[in-house]
């Protein structure tokens, strides 16, 4: 069956301008291909990072901090008055969450929420003449394993060893590597308040998040309280939720109810998530620029065809082609370039992804990886196609409209 005559004419126009058509096709294909490739790479990294922090870190951390300084009584009473307090000396508060056990008991009642207490602080590890400054978190292993995946990330040892071994400590892989420490080594731990303990390394973990692996260590909660000289103090409550989407609202509720700063995972990783937003902006701008350039190519091709085919447009109109038939022919040309370029771009994008997937390299940035982390989804192919087809069609629309408005009388008069 023959193609509709409009489609046939559009195809013939493009085939007779092979070189220019090819350049436009390449522009669209590059735009779509790189969009798919870069999206897979960047979203792969971003999604992996988010999955890991969601996996590794608590979904909400309740800290022994308040967001804003407490209001003074005079400010309460004269809220609208011109009150200016100078030289105010805030009361020295004992750090730690007051009534942490009660808060935990309340949160235990919330369905789908697991809560674990922690005391975090700093520690200096000394081993073989090397000092390593680390973060130390005192945990309750029974509760902790329900809140973070520290147990899953252990390369050696077990979480329960914190109970069974006195003065036990679990180190991040990077911490151990920095000081040359291995499991079962005895190391010295010096706290900022001057407590020194000989501790035994009962486990080494790898979360694949560089910052955590290079700086974090875990001890029993009681041991952390001894090291910090803060008996019975808990300065963090770590929460894990069955429904991750509830992190934000629940954190808000906890903060409102108990007054302590409650950070959902998005807030804890705000810096990195902010970088992702910028990254995505750069990616979409770059791909957008490629597509805009290819649109100019398409516009150029269709404009040239319209200019060259002015006489043909005149005769087609005299034959009974309506203005919209003429417009359709040239819009169709843009659409054909957009669609063909999209298919080529899909192939290019797929090849890029598979090419990147075959590259093996050890990377250590925010996260550790043995190669590019790629996120393969049909969504990228669909978005790329929609962007390409819409922009190609729009690029063709302007010259197509001009063609449809040409007056056949002017054309045939001028053509003799």
């Amino acid at each position, binding site marked *: 069956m023959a193609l509709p*005559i409009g489609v046939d004419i559009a195809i*013939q126009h493009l085939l*007779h301008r092979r070189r220019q058509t090819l350049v436009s096709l390449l522009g669209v294909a590059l735009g779509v291909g790189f969009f798919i490739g870069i999206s897979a790479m960047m979203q792969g990294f971003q999604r992996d990072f988010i999955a890991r922090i969601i996996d590794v870190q608590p979904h909400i951390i309740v800290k022994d901090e308040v967001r804003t300084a407490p209001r003074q009584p005079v400010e309460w009473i004269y809220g609208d008055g011109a009150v200016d307090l100078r030289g105010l000396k805030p009361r020295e508060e004992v750090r730690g969450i007051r009534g942490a056990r009660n808060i935990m008991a309340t949160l235990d009642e919330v369905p789908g929420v697991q809560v674990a207490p922690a005391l975090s602080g700093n520690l200096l590890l000394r081993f073989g003449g090397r000092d390593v400054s680390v973060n130390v978190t005192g945990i309750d292993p029974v509760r902790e394993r329900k809140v973070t995946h520290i147990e899953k990330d252990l390369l050696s040892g077990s979480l329960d060893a914190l109970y069974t071994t006195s003065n036990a400590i679990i180190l991040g892989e990077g911490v151990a590597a920095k000081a040359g420490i291995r499991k079962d080594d005895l190391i010295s731990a010096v706290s900022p308040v001057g407590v020194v303990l000989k501790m035994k390394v009962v486990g080494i973990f790898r979360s694949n998040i560089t910052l955590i692996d290079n700086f974090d260590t875990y001890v029993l909660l009681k041991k952390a309280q001894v090291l910090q000289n803060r008996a019975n103090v808990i300065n963090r409550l770590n929460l894990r939720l069955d429904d991750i989407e509830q992190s934000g609202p629940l954190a808000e509720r906890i903060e409102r109810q108990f007054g302590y700063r409650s950070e959902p995972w998005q807030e804890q990783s705000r810096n990195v998530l902010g970088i992702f937003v910028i990254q995505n902006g750069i990616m979409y701008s770059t791909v957008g620029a490629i597509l805009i350039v290819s649109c100019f190519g398409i516009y150029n091709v269709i404009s040239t065809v319209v200019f060259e085919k002015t006489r043909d447009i005149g*005769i087609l109109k*005299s034959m009974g082609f309506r203005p919209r038939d003429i417009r359709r022919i040239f819009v169709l040309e843009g659409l054909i370039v957009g669609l063909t370029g999209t298919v080529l771009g899909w192939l290019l994008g797929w090849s890029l992804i598979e090419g990147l997937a075959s590259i093996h390299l050890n990377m250590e940035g925010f996260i550790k990886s043995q190669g590019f982390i790629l996120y393969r989804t049909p969504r990228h192919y669909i978005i790329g196609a929609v962007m390409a087809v819409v922009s190609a069609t729009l690029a063709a629309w302007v010259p197509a409209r001009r063609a449809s408005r040409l007056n056949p*009388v002017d054309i*045939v008069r001028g053509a003799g």
Partner: protein
Amino acid sequence: MIAAVEARAVSRELPGPVPVTLVRNIDLTVSPGEFVAVTGPSGSGKSSLLYLLGLLDVPTAGTVLIEGRETDTLKPDQLAGLRLARIGFVFQFHFLLPEFTCQANVEIPIRRLGALSDQAARRRAAGLLESLEVSEHGGKYPDQVSGGQRQRVAIARALANDPPLLLADEPTGNLDTRTAHVVFDLFRDLAHSQGRSVVVVTHDTDLASMADRRIHLVDGTIVE
């Protein structure tokens, strides 16, 4: 008998600071099967009159009737529809689409009208090329055939949808005398044996004498 085309007090004026009158108050009736030649000096409004009769242009006064139907109230799409089905155009320049073969060029209006199947459209185009004695060139592209042959293909294309009205604007302007006579013979035959109305603009009085009726224009007005 209903006229194939009729102009009633048709005028066409180009707007501007100094308006230019192309044709002025023209009354003309062309009956079915009639072969009419329009002559006149350059700039007398011959082509303008033809474009008005062929609904390519719209009169500023008066009306054009196609087979008794007034066209001044029709929308551009309806005018295009009438051109497609009821009117065939031949110009001085052949205007064949260079990307298509001669046969494919003839098929274009048939495919646009969509009244025939693909196979029937091919058969009709081939038949027209044969009747115009250019069937052996059907598979060639326009730049592979002579000027006379191109013009025959253009005539075949104008007849593709079997229009009752054929309008030709200086169709022999680029042809040698012998070929020009052949083309005019063809027009006369289309009128007399096929019953089509043929209106041909020409500046050649010798060729014009081959028509049934001759209309002479001067300054946009019929003078004889």
